[in-house]
């Protein structure tokens, strides 16, 4: 059974149609990379899955249960998903440790000590030992994004949603963040990754899905979609990236 299933999802912001009839299913331990130009709907799709945006039509299922029904409590759903934002969005008034633990503590899922122990262990593992008591502003962008990743995985989510997690970083800091994602993938974390990093998509993703103007137009193994795309739109998009030296 798929962990996440998206059925015919449609979403508009006012007059602008952002998602049109998107179908996608993410199996356990699978990593799907969403690629596509800016404004193609990648971020919106991720935000819809985490119920940060309301969809207009269709259904999204988590472990076989519809989560986009108005009767479903969004808080309970979000606690089962981890989300990492492009701009880190750490809480600036809290320490690194507080950032990582506050979700689990306030939701009542973990006792304070338990949450702290788990956070320390994860921070340690991802090279952030000794930074527990620092405010985010004292950290580099790469470190902040790694903290954000730890914050998202600390409660043990069913799946991780990554929204262009390296786009706001200086080029030399991208690697350390991708390394964390790679490790999580190796552990079997189910992931949906919106990304501009084609080489990373190729390396980590099991499936690459190409969004164009709110429609999911092409999907398949990375080798197939990235090397021999069948649609002219996909070819054009990848061609533009090649010209820009990004792929």
């Amino acid at each position, binding site marked *: 059974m798929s962990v996440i299933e998206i059925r015919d999802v449609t979403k508009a912001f006012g007059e602008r149609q952002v998602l049109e009839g998107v179908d996608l299913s993410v199996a356990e331990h699978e990593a799907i990379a969403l690629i596509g130009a800016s404004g193609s709907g990648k971020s919106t799709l991720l935000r819809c899955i*985490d119920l*940060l945006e309301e969809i207009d039509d269709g259904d999204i299922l988590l472990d076989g249960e519809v989560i986009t029904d108005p009767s479903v409590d*969004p*808080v309970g759903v*979000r*606690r089962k*998903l*981890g*989300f990492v*934002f492009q*701009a880190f*969005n*750490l*809480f*600036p*008034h809290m320490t690194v440790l507080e950032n990582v633990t*506050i*979700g*689990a503590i*306030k*939701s009542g*899922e973990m006792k304070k000590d338990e949450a702290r122990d788990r956070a320390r262990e994860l921070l340690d593992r991802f090279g952030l030992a000794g930074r527990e008591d620092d405010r985010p*502003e004292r950290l580099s962008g790469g470190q902040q994004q790694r903290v954000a990743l730890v*914050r*998202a995985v600390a*409660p043990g989510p069913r799946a991780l949603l990554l929204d262009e997690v390296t786009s706001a970083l200086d080029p030399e800091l991208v690697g350390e963040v991708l390394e964390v994602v790679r490790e999580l993938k190796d552990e079997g974390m189910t992931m949906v990754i919106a990304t501009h990093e084609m080489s990373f998509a190729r390396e980590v993703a099991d499936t690459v899905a190409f969004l164009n103007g709110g429609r999911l137009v092409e999907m398949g193994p990375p080798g197939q979609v990235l090397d021999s795309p069948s649609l002219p739109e996909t070819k054009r998009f990848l061609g533009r990236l090649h010209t820009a030296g990004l792929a």
Partner: protein
Amino acid sequence: MNRPRPRSSADPSAGPDGSAILKEGGRRAERERAKRARSRRGQAVAFGSSLLILGGLAFLILTSSGWPEVRSQFFSVEVFRESFPGILSAFWLDVKMFLAIEAVVLVLGLLIAVVRSSVNPALFPIRILAALYCDIFRGIPVILLIYLFGFGIPTLELEGVPGDPLILGCTALALAYSAYVAEVYRAGIASVNQTQTDSALAVGMTRIQALRYVVLPQAIRRVRPPLLNDFISLQKDVALVAIVGVIEAFRQAQIDTARDFNFTPLIAAALLYLLVTIPMARLLDYISARDDVVRGAAR
């Protein structure tokens, strides 16, 4: 940092005999000396001009033909000594009023701001009321409100409503200031980026938790300077309740002034207000400066 070096080679008059390395050191010493000289000169000029202007002003005032009159009417030592203890004890009422009103304003203002900032459709009618409240209480002169409350409400003889003009006057002040402070808080809440709320929701907080643990702490930190500014105003505006017959420092000073036909008691009262407002203003400066430093370091 500075290498000790022979005095002669640092001296520009030493001539071209210094080596290249020494020359660079010589330039640095030279520059530093020039800088120090400039700063010494600046201090001397500041001191001299202060002495000249303030001294001149004092001289003009003290030697003017009206000065003895001013001194006996405004700065009479005997009248001051006589009236000060009474005014000081009346001033404690100002302090108590200020502390009580401030406590109410901090809570009520925040409550109104939170309601006005909420997006919950169930709160729509309360949101409208809160907006109306802010418009009305910010738009009416505080002195009118105090008068209306202190003299108007007792005539209604309402059951359970206190008739004490002190309490009614303070209530009017608290309501007016809550409206101002609510707007300050609201600006702070609006200044916290929506992505912070998204992030709080994404880690599994409820909307109320997101507000309580993520948005409000950041919002309040940002509005501390304008909040303190409003409290400086409140510290002196408590004197307005004098118009409904409450004998606080200003009213006591007025009474003394009328009795002796001398204005020194009002000066005594003014000094007492300054005694609390000036430290608050310095605290405000200090906090603003510190916040600037923190923000600067973050960049």
